[in-house]
């Protein structure tokens, strides 16, 4: 069996800072994962639809513009609606400590802010993927 972890890396909303997202995508690739990178300006619908078609294990959301409470929760809500409970959602960017818990309650299972070591993200994914 040739099973690979498939990860969707997406930037929701209008935020154009993609340095981190690209670095994470590359680090995951170097860790043996298949990374579908959707680029900028994604809506929750586009992200979830892509996650379905690409049958990903993980959705990674990157946001630095302060809109994470709205946009990340849009994605987790839509995932729940569509019954995709075997996909885990992680996030990164500029996310204040006090918002992290609220995001976790909404279904984001890991938040990786500035200063994160790439290996930590890889390990977290490997430990937490379902299916």
């Amino acid at each position: 069996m040739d099973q690979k972890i498939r990860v969707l890396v997406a930037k929701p909303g209008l935020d154009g800072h993609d340095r981190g997202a690209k670095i994470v995508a590359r680090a995951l690739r170097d860790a043996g994962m298949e990374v579908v990178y959707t680029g900028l300006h994604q809506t929750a619908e586009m992200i979830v639809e892509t996650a379905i078609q690409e049958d990903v294990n993980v959705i990674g959301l990157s946001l630095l513009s302060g809109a994470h409470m709205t946009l990340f929760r849009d994605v987790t809500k839509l995932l729940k609606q569509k019954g995709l409970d075997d996909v885990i959602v992680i996030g990164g960017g500029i996310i204040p400590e006090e918002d992290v818990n609220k995001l976790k309650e909404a279904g984001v299972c890991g938040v990786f802010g500035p200063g994160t070591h790439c290996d930590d993200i890889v390990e977290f994914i490997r430990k937490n993927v379902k299916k």
Partner: protein
Amino acid sequence: MNDIAAKVLKGDERSIARLITLAENGAPQAASEMKKIHPKTGNAYVIGITGVMGSGKSTLIFELTREYRRKGLKVGIIAIDPTSPFSGGALLGDRIRMMELATDDGVFIRSMGTRGMLGGLASAVYDVVEILDASGKDIILVETVGVGQAEVDVIKIADTTLVVLVPGLGDSIQTIKAGIMEIADIYIVNKADRSGVEQAVAELQSLIDIACSGKDRKTPVLTTIAKENKGISELRKEIENHEKYLKKTEMFDIKRRKRYESELVEIIRKRLMNFIFDESTFKEKVERLIDQISKKEVDPYTAADEILGKILK
């Protein structure tokens, strides 16, 4: 999970995606599901697209898909990117240019890594084509890795193969060696608003005149400006012409037969390799033989005889 094939036939997206994953991973239940859907395949027309990076392949596919959608056809897109030989991972970025199609439910896009296959395709691509076919897609576009001259396997799977070139990309047509140039059913010179387009078309035409002399079809050369949606409906018509040409002669059936042959070869190859190198009981014997080859106690041919002998018994 048991009725995944039935759901695929109804066009259920999650099932389509899941079955593709099972086929890609070589999961044990993939084969039984694929057996169920095979009788329902054969309707979709498969178009392969290859070309160097920077030629605008993805944008062309985007516009061509929108053209087919305007005609009311359902489209499946398979975008293939190279898997890293070092890490086994892949960066699948072709969807970026197609994200507007993400929410069109008449379009299904799947990104695949080559996972070790040379030739520009992924090993499971035959399965994916069948799955998309069986799920009701009328057109299937396969975008292959087109970095060099060896990535020509797309002809094994496509009814019509498009080769996309760009004027002034640094390589004049002559420097693009044989291989990728021989596989085209239609040439497309994209970004035709650039300088050098007439020269590129002329060079192509002279190559075609030589290559196609005596043949009953001369490979057409089209110019497009994909990002402005120019030349796209002409492309669709030219593809239809090629389809008519193939179906008028026996070429269509011959091509399809070649595709099934390649698919069968691939399935057998994978099974053999899995058996020899992954099946635990056999694997030990193989590992021991490889050690012996390293120590020059045994040569590779004798080792192969021994392995194959055991299998064929």
